[in-house]
């Protein structure tokens, strides 16, 4: 752009004809609040209409159920169990994923030996093996952790492989010419330069680990909020169930926010960060 017309992005957008004008910050916020109020209003109206009978509690009932839940120790221990399972599963997944990813990315033979299996397993979600996990471990924490690993490790490994394959070959041959051994070059060159890819994988895997934990609780009966929802539903405590789903929504948004903030914070220094930033 030789005509270096520097404009703020919003000015640029607003000025392009045929394009809807963008809203100001305040208007955006106001409309957002309006939208939320509208949705809550719709919910309230639907509940008041009685069309769904006891299946749909009012907004107020849900909020008071939520307040009630927040006062119980059981809720907090289930919340803790959910986060704990997701975190342990994620940690184990990242170790497995990164170790395997570095090996498969660096050694073509490992890659080709495992390619068929990983390609087959890639599109298969952990819920498919849930019955097996429940059969072996029962409705336990181990079962849920296992499912989180099934759900996250492969995705992390695949990203890591992409990262390793992206490593500058000149850096590697330089290392070799200086007599740096394989293990050391893996640790000092390959791993650091594939960090942005691993970071991206973790950003996606963190919310996914929560989702899998909920699935394990809801369908497999492992401890956590998923199980709480199942119990609330089968006991007919509808307002509690809605309140728990709201909690999960908040938790999910928080997980997404925290993991992207962490990725930015931890990897902003990396020269190739922009490449994976999406």
């Amino acid at each position, binding site marked *: 752009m*030789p005509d270096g017309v520097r404009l703020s992005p919003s*000015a640029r957008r607003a*000025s*392009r*004809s045929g394009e809807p004008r963008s809203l100001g910050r305040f208007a955006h916020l106001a409309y957002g609040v309006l939208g939320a109020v509208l949705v809550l209003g719709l919910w309230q109206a639907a509940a008041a209409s009685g069309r769904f009978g006891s299946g749909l509690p009012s907004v107020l009932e849900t909020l008071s159920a939520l307040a009630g839940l927040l006062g119980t120790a059981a809720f907090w221990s289930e919340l803790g169990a959910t986060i704990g399972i997701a975190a342990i599963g994620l940690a184990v997944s990242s170790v497995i994923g990164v170790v395997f990813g570095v090996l498969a990315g660096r050694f073509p033979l490992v890659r080709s030996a495992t390619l068929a299996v990983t390609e087959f397993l890639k599109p298969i979600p952990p819920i498919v093996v849930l019955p097996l996990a429940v059969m072996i471990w029962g409705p336990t924490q181990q079962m849920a952790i296992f499912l989180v690993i099934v759900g996250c490790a492969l995705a992390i490994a695949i990203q890591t492989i992409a990262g390793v394959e992206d490593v500058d070959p000149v850096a590697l041959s330089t290392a070799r010419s200086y007599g740096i051994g394989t293990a050391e070059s893996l640790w000092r060159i390959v791993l650091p330069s594939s960090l942005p890819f691993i970071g991206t994988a973790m950003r996606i895997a963190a919310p996914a680990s929560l989702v899998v934990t909920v699935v394990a609780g809801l369908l497999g009966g492992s401890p956590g909020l998923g199980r709480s929802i199942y119990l609330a539903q089968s006991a007919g405590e509808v307002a509690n169930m809605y309140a728990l789903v709201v909690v999960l929504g908040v938790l999910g948004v928080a997980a997404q926010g925290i993991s992207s903030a962490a990725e930015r914070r931890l990897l902003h220094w990396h020269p190739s960060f922009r490449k994976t930033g999406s």
Partner: protein
Amino acid sequence: MSTLGTRTGTTSPRPGELLLKVDGLAKSYTSKGKRTDIIGNLTFSVNAGEVVCLVGPSGVGKTTLLKCLAGLHPSTGGEMSIDGRRIYSPPPEMALVFQDYSRSLMPWLTVEKNLRLPLRHLRLPQSEVRTRILDALAAVGLSHAAKQYPWELSGGMQQRVAIARALAYRPEILIMDEPFASVDAQTRFDLEDLVLKIRDDYGMTVLLVTHDIDEAVYLSDRIVAIGLRPAVVLEELTVDLPLPRNQLDTRALPRFAELRNHTLSLIQHASAKPTPSAMEDAVPGAAGAPA
């Protein structure tokens, strides 16, 4: 000489008559309460059948000017008209060739379909559409590439496709924004000659924006030199080089060198002292250009 005719419906001006008029055009942005003037007070005109080049240093706001002209950006002052009608939105008599050819062609369409797309809403008979496309591709020397995708072609060829798209649209005025800025020198010469050929064959009026002074002198009937920010007209000069022109002989003429040096000194002088207060004294003709 307009054998292929122009757009139907309007009574288009004959060669030499006023086609495009820009009168006191101004453009400023307000961002965070601070006003930035991009275009001061710009007045010039283009007659039918002319090739006019707007020349100015980089960063002068030439692209903004063109976007106002094309009705893509609203101006903040002055008025523009084409065929005597004021421009508020993209006028039907106008086609634009953008600087960045790779971003102005639809990558999911073949060359032929790229040319066909703007013709859709004109509701022409199929035979007419086909003739226009074949003609336009022949005019830019790309008859063989009709079935290829733009990204399979070189940069120069892509810009030819963009020009062909404009030709098939049959505008009265073809506006080009630094069209040859990102191609190599040889291709650039070829494309410049293509512009002159189009003018001759189609009787097309061309308004071209460039920062390359040699290019401006070589192509133009008239040059409008624009000075630094906010953009104002420094001087208009008639290029009295003989027609037809060619890259070797025309560029070797002593008059070519004179015009070139004169324009260059105008531009250099203008870029040397960007006047922040230019807005106030930016009355046409009062831009204090050294003659």
